[in-house]
């Protein structure tokens, strides 16, 4: 009973928050609503017994991803309204068909799932974090390491892309000046 109440409450809240994120024209409203929606989504994970996933959801999304987006919002001039023009009808058609196919697949999925056997069944008497650790570090060790390498690549890529020549404004230069800058660029000793 409480599970049902919690599910419907958080479902309504999540849908409202994400609708605000998608529909509003103010970037500040969008980012605030999305942060709230991410926290409400973690509630579903707690209801479903995936405690560790819920904690990770809060830490990663509302901690790291939202901080990055807040930084991006401060960096870009997002107070200026971008005119949302009418989109290409072909893209709308393709995405609409995609969504329809997905709805059909989702309604068929519980029928198909009766034939699925659990590969790594949830054991009794073991907490969620412990069970996740045991599966992640035995069966999914190689994907885990690959994810670590991917995160390292992403971190280096972010630093190289965003931190390159931060003391100069590439906006105010012509294309030729940017090309010449690679040879003649030397960092000033005293900063700027």
């Amino acid at each position, binding site marked *: 009973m409480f599970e049902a109440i919690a599910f419907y409450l958080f479902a309504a809240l999540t849908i409202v928050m994400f609708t605000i994120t998608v529909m509003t024209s103010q970037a500040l409203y969008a980012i605030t609503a999305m942060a709230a929606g991410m926290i409400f989504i973690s509630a579903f994970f707690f209801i479903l017994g995936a405690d560790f996933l819920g904690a990770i959801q809060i830490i990663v999304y509302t901690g790291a991803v939202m901080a990055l987006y807040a930084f991006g919002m401060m960096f870009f001039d997002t107070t200026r309204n971008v005119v949302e023009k009418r989109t290409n009808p072909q893209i709308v058609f393709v*995405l609409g068909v995609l969504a329809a196919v997905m709805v059909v697949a989702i309604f068929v999925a519980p029928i198909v799932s009766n034939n699925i056997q659990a590969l790594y069944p949830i054991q009794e008497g073991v907490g969620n974090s412990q069970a996740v650790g045991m599966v992640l570090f035995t069966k999914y060790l190689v994907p885990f390491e690959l994810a670590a390498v991917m995160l390292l690549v992403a971190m280096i890529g972010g630093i190289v892309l965003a931190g390159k020549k931060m003391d100069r404004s590439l906006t105010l230069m012509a294309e030729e000046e940017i090309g010449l800058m690679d040879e003649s660029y030397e960092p000033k000793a005293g900063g700027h």
Partner: protein
Amino acid sequence: MEVTLTHYLVLSTILFAIGLIGVMRRKNLLMLFFATEILLNATNIAFAAISHYIGDLSGQMFAFFIIAIAASEVAIGLGLLIVWYKRTGKIDLDQMNSMRG
């Protein structure tokens, strides 16, 4: 009033559709990233729900990897967006037509 797997899957579909609407109507690239995060979160709910109702931990594992991919995507995407903004001063999708695509 039992909450079944279908409830969670329908919720996941609704959130995914909201994200698709966002991808379709946004022209600001930062707002487009918000919509992609909504798409990834919708699939995460589906994975966690299936993991719970089948009694298998693989769904949660996939959700973890999706979260890792989302974090990488934000880092690289924002880096590229900053470079583009420094060169042009705009993050509108319609003005990214230097390849005449």
